């Protein structure tokens, strides 16, 4: 009894926010929705939490029908929206109490579930929510979304704007929640976080580009990517873009990720070319494919087809 979506579409005036989206999230799964701002992630969350009615398609959440059983769905899911949406003028404890009461429960009843997270903000329980730091707000919002012991947890970009250390801690919390049997649908624009999910869906401009485990997404990538580096990165990007066989040229940390249209591409040819262009310390090696590479490749293809 996870989540099932079939052919969900939703438009706002002329903009197609979701275009025929179908997938399933298994019970107890940590499922990631990976895509940039404007991909349609928030619309999808608002539909699944019964705050928005799709134009087409149907969906079930914990076995309940989106339209017919919307009241029952609201009781069984927890939702942490992307924008901080707690009461800024209530204290940490008051916020938590409020959400517990609305759902007809108490902090004590389900304290077990939130204990790990709440303990970290408990020293500030009398502070107004509006005065908390970003990381603490995030922990409070998660506690409030969990207080009624939901079967499914919806987290819309919980780590956007959060530093890498706090992001790491947040994902460790998610893993522990998953171990307690909660089904989690989480969205993020950070591709490195995708690797921490059981399965992921890559989404762009309202369309699902691919769904698989993070391992399969990178292993099934049909293209060879090369790490290229020289003493002059700025010039290297220009020169690679002008190289006849170039298919994609993307800066990637300390290297440039390069793919060539030619299956018989020989790195030595490129090396000679770059040396002729006065590059020094030219290094070209096959790179380990990341989810971000696959995403960029699929996104460019998607765009090309559309144009």
């Amino acid at each position, binding site marked *: 009894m996870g989540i099932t979506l079939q052919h969900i579409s939703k438009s706002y005036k002329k903009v197609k926010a979701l275009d025929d989206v179908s997938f399933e999230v298994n019970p107890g799964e940590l499922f990631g929705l990976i895509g940039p701002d404007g991909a349609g992630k928030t619309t999808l969350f608002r539909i699944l939490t019964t705050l928005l009615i799709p134009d087409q398609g149907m969906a079930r959440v914990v076995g309940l029908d989106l339209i017919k059983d919307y009241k029952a769905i609201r009781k069984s899911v927890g939702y942490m929206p992307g924008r901080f949406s707690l009461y800024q003028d209530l204290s940490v404890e008051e916020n938590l109490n409020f959400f517990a009461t609305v759902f007809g429960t108490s902090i004590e009843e389900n304290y077990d579930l939130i204990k790990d997270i709440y303990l970290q903000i408990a020293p500030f329980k009398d502070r107004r929510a509006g005065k908390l730091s970003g990381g603490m707000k995030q922990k409070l919002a998660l506690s409030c979304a969990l207080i009624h012991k939901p079967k499914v947890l919806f987290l819309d970009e919980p780590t956007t704007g959060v530093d890498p250390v706090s992001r790491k801690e947040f994902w460790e919390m998610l893993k522990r929640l998953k171990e307690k049997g909660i089904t989690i649908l989480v969205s993020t624009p950070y591709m*490195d976080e995708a690797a921490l999910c059981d399965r992921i869906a890559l989404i762009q401009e309202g369309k699902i580009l691919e769904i698989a485990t993070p391992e399969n997404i990178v292993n099934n990538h049909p293209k060879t990517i090369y790490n290229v580096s020289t003493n002059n990165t700025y010039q290297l990007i220009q020169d690679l873009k002008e190289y006849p066989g170039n298919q994609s040229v993307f800066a990637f940390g300390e290297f440039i990720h390069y793919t060539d249209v030619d299956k018989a591409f020989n790195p030595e040819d490129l090396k000679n070319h770059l040396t002729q262009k006065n590059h020094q310390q030219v290094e070209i090696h096959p790179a380990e494919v990341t989810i971000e590479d696959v995403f960029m490749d699929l996104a460019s293809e998607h765009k090309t087809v559309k144009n």
Partner: protein
Amino acid sequence: MSSEKVIEVENLTKKFGDFTAVKGISFEVKKGEIFGFLGANGAGKTTAMKMLIGISKPSSGEATVAGFDVKTNSEMVKKSIGYMSQRFSMYDDLTIKENITFFGGIYGLSRKQIKEKTKVLIQELQLQEVAGKLVGSLPLGWKQKLAFSVSLLHEPKIVFLDEPTGGVDPITRRQFWELIYAEAHKGTTIFVTTHYMDEAEYCDRVSIMVDGVIEALDSPGKLKEQFKTDSMEGVFLKLARGL
């Protein structure tokens, strides 16, 4: 990159009551350098940056930006720098052209200059077809590229970028960095904060703030060597959490 210094910071400190947000930081940034300013949430980055752009007075210490003292000459500092952030970029209810005209006016450009700049900018960003559209209708990545170009309208010596690529799709994020590279190449100094650790690699030098103090400052390569790790994320994790 030249040896001319465009930012000089000495013992810069900011206190809010009993709390010291920035504890005597010192560093220099050279002309044409891409300087990454990293740190965990709450480490004091924003407070430090506000002092450097002349909108918050230091409690003690010195800072000169583009040759002007941030304490005594903050108005000149503001005129000599560009600034953009993820939160404040453009007016959604104005068109692309109107936004450029508006900001050009704020920066004191003449009508003629604004007209010329508008033409060049729209061409460079290939926005010809959407120049008359409201900024609010653009994808975030386009908005950010536009905001970056607008922050450069008055040809500042330094541009401050506060998390410019947060939430931007991976392809546009890279196009954005290509704009940064090109601008630095022309001699503009780039001061940038980010939570993407791959972007830290694109900087000439990176500083990492922890609890109000700059704990590390060097090129990405040297930092990785120093902390015996193969990624900037590794450096960050070791510093910020002592892992």
